[in-house]
């Protein structure tokens, strides 16, 4: 008998006297209504609690805010699908990561920052989801550089996690980010900044 067959038959034997469980009660909150201003306020509060830096801007102000946030970067990477109005193609610090023209791990390690968009955000928990589509790029680019500038369109913000999941394509490689990298491993006190980006700047964009 293969290991699979044996384990499955052990389970079947183990369950011979198991009761049939009832349906799962889903009486928790799955919908909400919150005005846009409150939603933004909640997300900002949560992200700042995680020690992320947050800007809230109108769409026309986005490029200038990006320039400001990246002003100290010696170099930065963007995924190939970033809106071309968001960056200056002539910037010599710019590196574009695209299928067929990917940066190596050591090139990413020498890159000081990364600019991405995001797929969906959960205000209540301060969580931003990246799904690897063309304006967010493959996972490595938002991981290896030490400074992540992340754009969150207001239309992608929901209040609750149950409202966010239907917006996610679960078979894509997903990264849920709630603040910069942190640890609670020493005396269970949270300290920001370990292996992932130590600096997280979030730009929430109204009208986008």
């Amino acid at each position: 008998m293969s290991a699979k067959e044996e384990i499955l038959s052990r389970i079947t034997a183990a369950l011979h006297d198991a009761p049939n469980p009832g349906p799962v009660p889903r009486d928790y909150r799955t919908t909400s209504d919150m005005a846009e201003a409150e939603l933004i306020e909640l997300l900002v509060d949560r992200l700042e609690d995680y020690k992320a830096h947050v800007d809230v801007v109108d769409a026309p102000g986005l490029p200038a805010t990006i320039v400001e946030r990246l002003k100290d970067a010696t170099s930065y990477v963007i995924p190939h699908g970033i809106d071309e109005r968001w960056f200056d193609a002539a910037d010599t610090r710019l590196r574009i990561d695209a299928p067929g023209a990917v940066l190596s791990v050591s090139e990413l390690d020498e890159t000081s920052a990364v600019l991405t968009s995001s797929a969906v955000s959960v205000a209540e928990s301060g969580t931003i989801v990246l799904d690897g589509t063309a304006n967010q790029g493959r996972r490595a680019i938002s991981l290896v550089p030490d400074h992540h500038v992340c754009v969150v369109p207001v239309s992608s913000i929901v209040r609750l996690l149950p409202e966010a999941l239907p917006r996610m394509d679960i078979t894509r490689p997903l990264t849920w980010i709630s603040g910069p990298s942190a640890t609670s491993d020493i005396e269970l006190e949270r300290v920001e900044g370990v292996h992932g980006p130590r600096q997280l700047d979030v730009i929430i964009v109204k009208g986008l």
Partner: protein
Amino acid sequence: MSNVFMGMPALPVFGDGNLHIEEPFPAAAHRELGNTQMRANLRHATHTIRDKRLKVVAELPDWEELRDAGSATKDLVMANLPALLEEFEKNFTARGGIIHWARDSHEANKIVADLIREQNTTEVVKVKSMATQEIGLNEYLEEQGISAFETDLAELIVQLGHDKPSHILVPAIHKNRTEVRDIFLKEMPNVDPNLTDEPRLLAMAAREHLRRKFLSAKVAISGANFALADSGTLAVVESEGNGRMCLTLPETLITVMGIEKLLPAKEDLEVFMQLLPRSSTGERMNPYTSLWTGVTEGDGPQNVHLVLLDNGRTAALADKYGRTALNCIRCSACMNVCPVYERTGGHAYGSTYPGPIGAILTPLLTGIKSEENSSLPYASSLCGACFDACPVKINIPEILVHLRGEDVDSKRGTKKLPTQMDLMMKGAGWAFSSGKHLALLEKGLPFGKLAAGRDKKIKRLPGIAAGWTQSRDIPAPPAQSFRDWWKKDHTPVAPTHQQEN
């Protein structure tokens, strides 16, 4: 459920690995209690996390509804496990992942070592994983000439300190910042000799130490927090980004996961990803969660494996009173609130799984008769704090009592002569069966008073009752029983209703 069971149930097959405790809990606890530094560290850490957890749990108006959904989902998973495992395998395989099944720790270890060898490397990076801790993977790989580098900060502290984990979430919880600094100074090559004990600087030192490993590793090993059957998706929940590094940069990823980790569908994440972070680190959400479904071209590892592990889980599932222990999502809330764990620490439990959940899970995985594991269900005052804290509502006190019964029953058949406990219980049964029996026994009270002597304390009881007086005295019994006193002091008021038998 589509599986129809026919015939007699087979005997359960128990697990092995780092689950068999060598020393009975009372002896280990007694020794650990002497470590006052550890007790101070644990008190500080467990109280910090309790307050944080309570604060973030109180924020959610639907916490109890989430617990109900979590508990019911896990019950559903266990009842439909064969079908869900098949569904998961089909979807994970369709997306380019490769599944391996392992009956026990030895089989799992061998599968992993062979997969590493196929990549012609002798170094791997690891994300914290209870399953690989349980099967003793690091020790096995070392025997095979493969070095496994733990990348979680707490695991790194334990590994560098040649120590053992004492908590499932924060394995180095028994060490304070100064002790961590000392370990780094002694064991970490190229560390700054002026390193202070500030946690932020200690975390930076770990970053420097592991950076090259992450960027150059060819193979990573991980556990998994959840697996979604309807899509074949795996999830790892973490804080530091070491998980993202391991799950993203190497070409080969090998995940080891217990068969009970499945969830039916994507929507179940909306429950568990609210329950888990708030219960474990007391955060609204952990900094990073990674989800992957087989292989994604051009993004992350292209050689993706999953080892599905039994190692006693089917034996635990066969215990109809204990099977809900498998619903555990390894959040560690139960140990953080446990008065026993807070004082003895995790090492006293001797198994990969300490604390209240460990006291039930360990003997369920190995069988109650394994070595000293039968002492674990007694490592509790049955106060019930663990049950209240459990995000999936595992009734730990009830299972502890059930396992104590299993232990007593398993020993009953093996002894020819009745034990002291048997005789005491028999005596108690006789005494409490009738008022007359009790009255007769109570005539002995003045002798108790005599035995207590001048300071009116009995300091040592004979036989097994000596365990009770080991850490406390019994006050001298009164000269007369309550019933005698009542008879003398109270004349019946309404004799017409009095019926003497």
